[in-house]
């Protein structure tokens, strides 16, 4: 299959664009694979890609109950960053960010990774101090971070009202290498590249049960028949509990919904990603021109993929408070994703109590930026049957051991992360 390039676009344009083929095949499932990855979102597809690319494991199936990239991969606010406090988190996310930085070239697909800068505003001493601690943690781990004063914020994002009347902006913590990427393209790009390396991406194939024997997994039952493999990786954000129930164990996850919003398309207005520190709100502008924004969880468990009005009102109010010029613009669409929320806000990339079963899960609302890193570490863990040092702390057992990765100190409450 010919790759994508400007030259090929030129050629195809001249012959009526008739030569384009499927971006990934639509194969029938084989009865056996070396590895089955459950979940055709970004994480699952990335797992398959890195299994093939890094570990040479190409006899891999990705099973997706619907369409690829239609879960949280297609429902987020597309932010990419590695600005974390705890070293376990910031090292992992930095690895992920580095993968992002070369992703177009690795995949041969333009995922529009745009390193336009991510700014977290702070509004009081306590927030500023926490931002400095986090920024220094990043710097000491070799990650870029800058502290901005009010003028610095104004220069990066002139439309922010520094004096918003209630919680004036004191400054911001900026990660210049952070930014956004085109979410759908991430799924399609990983699918395209994994497919090219021999991975079978099987859509409309829902896992309905697990085939177990002797405390180990043997494969899965699906709506398209039994498929066997000695190793199975789960990458089913929002639905992890449903799958682990089939495997016979419970996990520290509650599924919550998170809304996101987009405005009508506008000429360039906001050039970076900026988060409000005085309320749940973050915003950036897509290349198409829509303002993409969101806030916090609706606050109760849901698999419903639809949000409600009160949280939306908070998001819009926070938005106008931070940027009063938004008032006359219009919200176009809202949607919601369902998140695996964990009791410390940090994820799981690990082996499970069932031999041969692995998972990347518990991404709370940080899953999108983790996509390549999660796939990379998950693939490593599956291939070597042991975690890479980058994901060694992301275990299910850390709560038994008291080794929580509670980035913000919010305590053992799924809905508070």
């Amino acid at each position, binding site marked *: 299959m010919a790759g*994508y*390039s400007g030259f090929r676009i030129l050629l195809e344009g001249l012959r009526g*664009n008739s030569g*384009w*083929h*499927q*971006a990934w095949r639509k194969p029938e499932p084989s009865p056996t694979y070396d590895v089955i990855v459950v979940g055709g979102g970004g994480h699952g597809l990335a797992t398959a890609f890195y299994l093939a690319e890094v570990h040479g494991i190409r006899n891999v199936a990705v099973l997706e109950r619907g369409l690829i990239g239609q879960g949280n991969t*297609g429902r987020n606010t597309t932010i990419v960053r590695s600005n974390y406090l705890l070293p376990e988190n910031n090292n992992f996310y930095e690895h992920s960010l580095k993968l992002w*930085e*070369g992703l177009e070239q690795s995949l041969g*697909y*333009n995922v*529009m990774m745009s390193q336009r800068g991510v700014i977290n505003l702070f509004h009081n001493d*306590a927030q*500023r*101090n926490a931002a*400095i*601690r*986090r920024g*220094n*943690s990043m710097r000491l781990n070799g990650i870029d*971070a800058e*502290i901005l004063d009010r003028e610095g914020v104004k220069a990066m994002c002139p439309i922010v*009202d520094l004096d*918003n*009347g*209630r*919680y004036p902006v004191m400054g911001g913590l900026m990660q210049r290498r952070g930014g956004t990427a085109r979410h*759908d393209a991430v799924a*399609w*790009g990983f699918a395209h590249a994994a497919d090219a390396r021999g991975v079978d991406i099987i859509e409309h194939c829902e896992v309905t049960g697990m085939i177990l024997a002797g405390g180990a997994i043997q494969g899965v039952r699906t709506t398209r028949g039994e498929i066997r493999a000695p190793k199975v990786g789960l990458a089913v954000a929002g639905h992890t509990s449903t799958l682990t129930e089939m495997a016979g164990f419970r996990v520290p996850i509650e599924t919550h919904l998170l809304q996101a919003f987009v405005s009508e*398309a506008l*000429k*360039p*207005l906001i050039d970076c990603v900026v988060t409000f520190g005085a309320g749940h709100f973050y915003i950036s*502008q897509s*290349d*198409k021109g829509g303002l993409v924004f969101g806030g916090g969880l609706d606050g109760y468990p849901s698999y419903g993929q*639809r949000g409600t*009005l009160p949280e939306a*009102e908070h998001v819009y*109010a*926070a938005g*106008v*408070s931070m940027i*009063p*010029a938004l*008032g*006359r*613009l*219009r*919200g176009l*669409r*809202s949607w919601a994703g369902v998140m695996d929320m964990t009791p410390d806000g940090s994820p799981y990339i690990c082996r499970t109590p069932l031999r041969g079963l692995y998972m990347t899960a518990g991404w709370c609302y940080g899953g999108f930026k983790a996509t390549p890193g999660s796939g990379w570490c998950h693939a490593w863990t599956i291939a070597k049957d042991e975690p890479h040092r980058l994901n060694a702390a992301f275990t299910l057992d*850390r709560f*038994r*051991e*008291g080794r929580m990765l*509670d980035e913000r100190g919010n*305590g053992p409450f799924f809905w508070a992360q």
Partner: protein
Amino acid sequence: MSQPHRRQAGGHIDRARRLAFTFDGRRFEGHPGDTLASALLANGVRLVGRSFKYHRPRGIFSAGVEEPNALVELREGARREPNTRATVVELFDGLVAGSQNRRGSLAFDWMAAAGLLAPWLGAGFYYKTFMWPAAWWERVYEPMIRRAAGLGHASGMPDPDRYEAAHAHCDVLVVGAGPAGLAAARAAGATGARVILADQDVLLGGDLLNEPGLEAWRHETLSAIAGMPEVTVMPRTTVFGFYDQGVLGAVERVADHVPEPPPHTPRQRAWTIRAREVVLATGAHERLIAFPGNDRPGVMLAGAARGYARRHGVRAGESAVLFATHDGAYDAAFAMAEAGARIVAIVDPRQDSAAMQRAREAGFDIRTGSEVCGTVGLTALRGVSVRGVGAAGRGDAFAADLLMVSGGWNPAVHLASMSGAPLAWDEALLAFVPGAPVQRERSAGACRGVHGIGAAAADGAAAGHAAAEAAGFVAMPAFPLPDAPAADCRPCELWEVKGRGKAFVDLQDDVTAADIRLAHREGFSHIEHAKRYTTHAMGTDQGKTGGIVGAAVLAEARGEPVSRVGLPRFRPYAAPIAWGAMAGEGVGKHFQPTRRTALHGVHEALGAAWLDAGIWKRPAYYPRPADADAWASVLREARAVRERVGICDVSTLGKIMVEGPDAATFLDRVYANTFSTLPIGRARYGLMLRDDGIVFDDGTTSRIGPESWFVTTTTAQAGPVMQHLEFHLASAWPDLDVSLASVTDQWAAIAIAGPRAREVVAAVVQGLDLSNEAFPFMAVADCTAAGVPARLFRISFSGELAYEIAMPAGYATHVWQAAMEAGATHGIEPYGMEALGLLRIEKGHVAGPELNGQTTAQDLGLGRMLKKKGDFIGRVLAQRPGLTDPSRPRLVGLRSVDPARQIRVGSHLVLPGGDGRSQGWITSVTRSVVEPGWIGLGMLREGEARIGSEVLAANPLMGEEVPVRVVSAHMHDPENIRVRA
């Protein structure tokens, strides 16, 4: 300034009044009753905008919210609203609008060159290129794409207008006031039910507004509804979302039809409506047909042309062709003929129909079995090509300046779909209609495929009756329904006319039928994938006119029926809504309420500098003219406390009355240390853990009586602690008889601290012996202070001899002033939060920065407080190995080796000459008054063992690295001599 395309009479237009407006700087006139679109058409303005990608010239395509093309920037300055649909803007005098998404003038947009590159700019082209060199994406490619993309310009200035929220409840909500909605509201209202009738239009009636013959029925119905006291009519109100459990969101445009809102009037009002039953009478949107050149200005939906002619008295063209696939569109030809336009031809792929017969009798030229296969014209339509269905060639040319198109009707199922109802395919209408309801809603009229005014009204009346009955009301006798023959709206299946040139399925985002086929070839064959890959139906119109057409093109490519392909999922909002309206009034200064202590006015009078502590405003410090800077004030205040006496407002601490026979047992369980042994009249410092063993909160708690306790919390955790206590009483220990009351607001509290505190307090408080023996450290007693009832605590946060006086909040100012007077001779000074922080850091008291939800009691040097016997929250999980790990960072004191070098919170502690890895961090910093220089508290691995050694405070973020000495956290008076003095 004539309006050459205005009819002499007819329609809902007040020709007696003229409204002046400008478009792209040109002055025009219209009348009340006009939309911006109808006024532009009346003045012969055909070219209104440019398309998203190819910058093709576009005109007015519809007459409502479904408009994909005629988007303008409305108003000027800070009130500019980009992407405003000219078709829904009510004309007002002085209106200013401009076209958007163009470079150069609207007529000569040089970005239209993009059209020449169209072969290379097909769906998803950008995913396949712009990858090399990698660094060029942010620098070159992306800025280019971003500038080219987008639609209108935001003003970038703060919105000067105000918005309101509002709440409503009703038995029956009727959405849409066309024939079905009016009848539904009347039927439901007649039962006595509380009814809300909402419609996005300013005039109620929907399609009735296009039927002069039915005006009497419309009036009669409206006046009947107006006579029903429990029916609320809400015009200019768009219901944008149907949420769970009968809750709908709506936006009322209160003052969008005037240049700016009058005083005390919001621009818009956002309603949350809770309805027991909902009748959706949202009508239908006419659909386009994809044929080459179907986007040229002058190509218009047939129903829109009919509406402009009948409702607005405007001829959208002078020589018109109708291209229709069903009888329901033919009235457009009659309406245009009535209006004085020439009907050039009617093009219909069908062979015969009732409407054709009538049209033929009227003398129209009917081209049966035919289709429009092309259009000509640059910035306005000049002609139409017509050929036999499926025939080859360019067809016959007809000169025309208006092409009216109707491919059938798409029921407006958005709200039904958002309510959870599935969609069902109606093979006769070739459209999706609402399936079985999931919530308590029902659709009526055209939004479920019942066309024709009479039929829709009957359907609406039935739905209104049924809804009221379901809400528990008794249906009332029927009322007259409009007598109007219905034209057959079942179309023949014609989605696309293939030929040379672009045939658009999404006019706004420039998605062509060929793009859809390309998406299919590349495997994006599911409607959701095709939508995302091509951006089909993702514009501001959300595919209301062309969404189904794209699905049909995809269906053909897949070789499957449209019903299998389906539509992309409907998500809120049914129409775009103003950000400000969703935000409501709680923005800016009022984003969160500001909480003030009873002493707020005192601090204001003292000229306090403020800080935000959660939603509280607290004095940071009290600047004086002689103070060189903020630090001078803070040091002055702190020095007063260390050397003389200071006074501080501590009212924000959470205060909870805990009372009952089991109160002591309860407190023993929620605190990690013991309280049941505390004598009456004594206070104790208490530590609460969360169930996971992490420190939750601290505070002093006093025993007031045998069963009565006064618990204090930190300011930040007052709410969470109350909830924590209530939760455990309800869930874990329902057997305990304990009452909880928050008394935070009832009691104000003043700290008086310093070596002279006793003298000051003694002068204020009556009836207590304050000697160290009679009232020692940690004593508590009720008393009278300055003549008002009060409670005195001998507790200290500063490390000095100190008292807190709590008094009913209304007396706080009185007691404060009494203390200031009593303290005057002792040099009393008010101190704020900064000095308070300074004092507690010197003393080594932990506060918010240390109690950050990540630290254990051991981490904070408080491990010995945990009781050995008896259960308490957090006891078990605090024993997990990760939390008892001796290598965890411990609380230490820190002192800058060079007293002049500032250290900062958030710096990390690294070992000199080490590997640069973080061994801990600084949590709190201040300048010291006891021993000048910078000191702080921090968390440091092997902290106790490192006392006396030097480490580096690394702050690479600010380019600093400062040597600090590790010391005991208790830097000031470690033996507690002063507090017990």
